[in-house]
């Protein structure tokens, strides 16, 4: 989903330095503020915590979530439940449990997100948030009827201490989120927002990716709900009004919630702006209008204010910004045609391929009697294609012959087919797409599906299984990219032109060392010279890097130069298969496909 489209240029600034800065500010602020302002500052931290959750689901995974206050209300409820009914659990324990319980609720809300997307998810979360408040209006919070006051333990009674506690919780979640961003899961969030299919094709579970984002979002909201109760002493449902959820969402969009400073600013604005206007005797309604306008501006720019500042600073310190990338992509699309020769410095890279463990005569990929119907139209009937290890096999055919459907069936994106698919002898038909990817079948897509927020190297390492990534040195990756005329591994993908991004995608599929790589029209949009070069590279791939290749292409010259076996599809049926020369001599083939070429 493209709610916030443009990419922020990396997380270069920040890290430990900004953490230190935050701690210093945290220590200094209470000394300078009046009691009332300190109370407000604490509220700002609590809201900032909640906004971080939006940064997780919307900022990272690109999903709309309109139920932050609903989650916070759940956290508040659990906190009070723990404090009152469950033997007066310790204050901190109750906060942590509230966060975890809310995370479970978030997980449950995230489950429908596996099927609902875009605005439907917005509807679902909105309705969920409202339902929570409706139920709580009726049920009330624990202790509400007895006017229970959630007193804090002695060491937290002072407002200053409570401010520190909120600051520490915020800092901890910020650090945790920043650390998660560096993991595979962190990269998967960005991947899923770009394309779910591409995420699964990298061997990452989309379900886990999305639900984890929701769970973390709810976790911080639950924490903030609990902290809110601790701050206020007592709460009513009115504090969690659905419209306030929307306003917080708008402020998050306005400031950009993906990074801690954005969340912090959003929290501060949300709390202090109304007070500021009140002091000036201006209606408290004005800030809400400003938030709405600010969100519109944020949407217009494709990123919030804080993200924008980070991006500008990032550019200043030497990263290529995406704007430049767009321009150069248009100009330099054909830039990598005339490069260096096939000889690449360094030794041949021979990593561990899955094939190493299998006997050489077992085919890398076996597609047997595969049939598929789509809305009563037979898209594939009884298709058999075998890709031996160490070979490049091509599937060609006119438009609509079923080539893309075949790839989708084999890689698990279309499930209701009949027939058998085996990778190195192992049946993979029952596996979901991401498990198939892990079991040795990788693919590229016709469109660019790389993740602009990552460097080339990080993208490649995301694609590679953990062990393979650990065994592969940066130099090996650089050589591999150089072999395919790819960009330097340290470049941000956002700054790489579209043609090179597709190369990176191919390299990623190969670098994962699967048994077989499926390339879906890799030469689309390439000039003739470039596509011949690509043909050489593809032809050399099995011997050099291990994986066999199944090549689906339009470009006859490329196919003839790259493959050793060829299968021709027409109207979903195999009409010829064998060595390219024999196949091309077949009159049926000429009639279905090549005749047209010859006529031209």
């Amino acid at each position: 989903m493209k709610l916030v489209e443009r990419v922020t240029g990396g997380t270069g600034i920040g890290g430990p330095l900004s953490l230190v800065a935050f701690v210093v500010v945290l220590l200094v602020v209470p000394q300078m503020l009046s009691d009332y302002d300190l109370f407000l500052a604490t509220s700002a931290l609590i809201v900032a915590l909640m906004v971080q959750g939006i940064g997780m689901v919307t900022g990272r995974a690109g999903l709309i979530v309109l139920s932050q206050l609903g989650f916070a209300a759940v956290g508040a409820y659990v906190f009070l439940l723990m404090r009152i009914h469950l033997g007066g659990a310790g204050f901190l324990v109750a906060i942590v449990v509230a966060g975890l319980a809310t995370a479970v609720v978030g997980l449950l809300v995230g489950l429908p997100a596996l099927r609902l997307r875009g605005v439907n998810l917005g509807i679902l979360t909105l309705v969920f948030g409202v339902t929570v408040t409706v139920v709580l209006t009726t049920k009330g919070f624990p202790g509400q009827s007895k006017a229970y006051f959630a007193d804090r333990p002695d060491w937290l009674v002072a407002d200053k201490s409570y401010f520190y506690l909120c600051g520490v919780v915020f800092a901890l979640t910020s650090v945790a989120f920043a650390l998660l961003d560096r993991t595979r899961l962190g990269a998967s969030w960005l991947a899923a927002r770009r394309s779910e299919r591409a995420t699964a094709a990298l061997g990452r579970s989309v379900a886990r990716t999305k639900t984890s984002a929701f769970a973390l979002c709810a976790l911080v909201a639950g924490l903030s709900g609990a902290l809110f109760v601790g701050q206020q002493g007592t709460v009513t449902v009115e504090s969690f009004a659905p419209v306030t959820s929307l306003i917080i969402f708008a402020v998050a969009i306005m400031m950009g919630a993906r990074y801690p400073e954005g969340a912090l600013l959003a929290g501060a604005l949300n709390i202090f702006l109304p007070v500021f206007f009140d002091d000036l005797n201006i209606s408290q309604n004005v800030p809400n209008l400003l938030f709405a306008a600010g969100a519109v501006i944020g949407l217009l720019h494709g990123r919030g204010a804080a993200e924008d500042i980070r991006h500008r600073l990032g550019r200043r310190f030497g990263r290529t910004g995406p704007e430049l990338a767009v321009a150069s992509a248009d100009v330099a699309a054909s830039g990598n045609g005339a490069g260096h020769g096939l000889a690449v410095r360094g030794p041949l890279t021979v990593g561990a391929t899955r094939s190493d463990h299998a006997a050489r005569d077992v085919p890398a990929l076996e597609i047997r009697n595969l049939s598929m119907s789509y809305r009563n139209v037979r898209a594939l009937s009884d298709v058999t294609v075998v890709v031996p290890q160490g070979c490049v096999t091509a599937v060609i055919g006119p438009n609509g012959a079923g080539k893309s459907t075949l790839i989708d069936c084999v890689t698990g994106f279309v499930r209701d087919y009949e027939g058998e698919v085996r990778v190195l002898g192992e049946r993979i038909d029952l596996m979901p797409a991401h498990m198939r990817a892990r079991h040795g079948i990788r693919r590229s897509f016709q469109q660019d599906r790389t993740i602009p927020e990552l460097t080339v190297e990080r993208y490649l390492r995301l694609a590679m299984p953990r062990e393979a990534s650990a065994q592969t040195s940066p130099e090996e990756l650089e050589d591999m990219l150089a072999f395919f005329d790819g960009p330097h591994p340290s470049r941000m993908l956002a700054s790489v032109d579209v043609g090179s991004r597709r190369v990176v995608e191919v390299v990623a599929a190969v670098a994962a060392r699967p048994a077989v790589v499926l390339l879906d029209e890799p030469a689309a949009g390439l000039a003739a010279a470039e596509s011949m070069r690509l043909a050489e590279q593809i032809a050399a791939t099995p011997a050099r890097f291990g994986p066999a290749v199944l090549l689906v292409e339009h470009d006859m010259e490329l196919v003839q130069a790259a493959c050793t076996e060829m299968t021709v599809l027409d109207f979903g049926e195999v009409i010829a298969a064998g060595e390219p020369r024999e196949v091309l001599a077949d009159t049926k083939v000429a009639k279905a496909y090549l005749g047209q070429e010859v006529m031209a």
Partner: protein
Amino acid sequence: MIQAGVSGILAGAAVAMLGACMVFMYRMVRVLNFAQVAIGTAGAFVSIILGEHGWPFVPAAAAGVLAATAIGVLCGTIMSALFTEASTEARSTVAITFLIALVTLGSWIFGSDPRPIPQLLPHSNLQVGDIEVSAATIVTLVLAIGLAGAATLLLKRTRLGTLLRAMAEGSRAAELLGVPSRRMAIGVWGVSAAVAAIAVLLAAPSRQSDFTALSVQLLLPAVAAASLGLLRSLPGAVAAGLGLGVCEALVTYSSDLAPYADAVPLLAILLVLGWTQRKAVWDEAR
């Protein structure tokens, strides 16, 4: 029991109209208009205020509908000027900001105290056997079904409908063929706003009456109805709206569950969308 269900038809029909408006807008101008109900509420409040100043019903209602249309046109103009090429999600988020702005302005201008809302239609009832059906119910029901039917016919049978559908699929391609997509899109905003105002006017007397409450309370079932119509089918949204209205009335009738009546939309969405979308394993991006 049956009487309770029938009394839910009034609310349900208003919700159906609002839901159908949202589906219409979603299909034609790629936005889930979270502000739909708020725009209608603003129009309804204008009518109510004018009524309080002694205006007769018809001119007051007309002025309210016009006011809503103007607000809709304003929102549509902002959207077309700034977010023509933006994604549906981004446009829908812009609609959320419209909602925030309208609710803020609405409670600022009209105050946040509940105000008495006059029954605009004559309070006459129709007796069918043991069951009483109010005139408002019948009018709202007929309007909901009639408008959805008219919109469906318009889209299918007329050239304007063809142009609208073309604009919905590709406003840029349509513009290259000389279709004034932008103006038509703003028109869609205006018309939907007018219908929303009528719906809120009809439903208001049986609902809470301060601006924010009315906007949010009706938004929930309306958005649910649109969602249950799969954001695609006008008759589906109308049926869903009526169904939700009746269900809520029935749940309210059974006193044990009454407090949870507002949870009906959540359950309905989870059940219906969970079922219809069960095969939507992957997103659109390929």
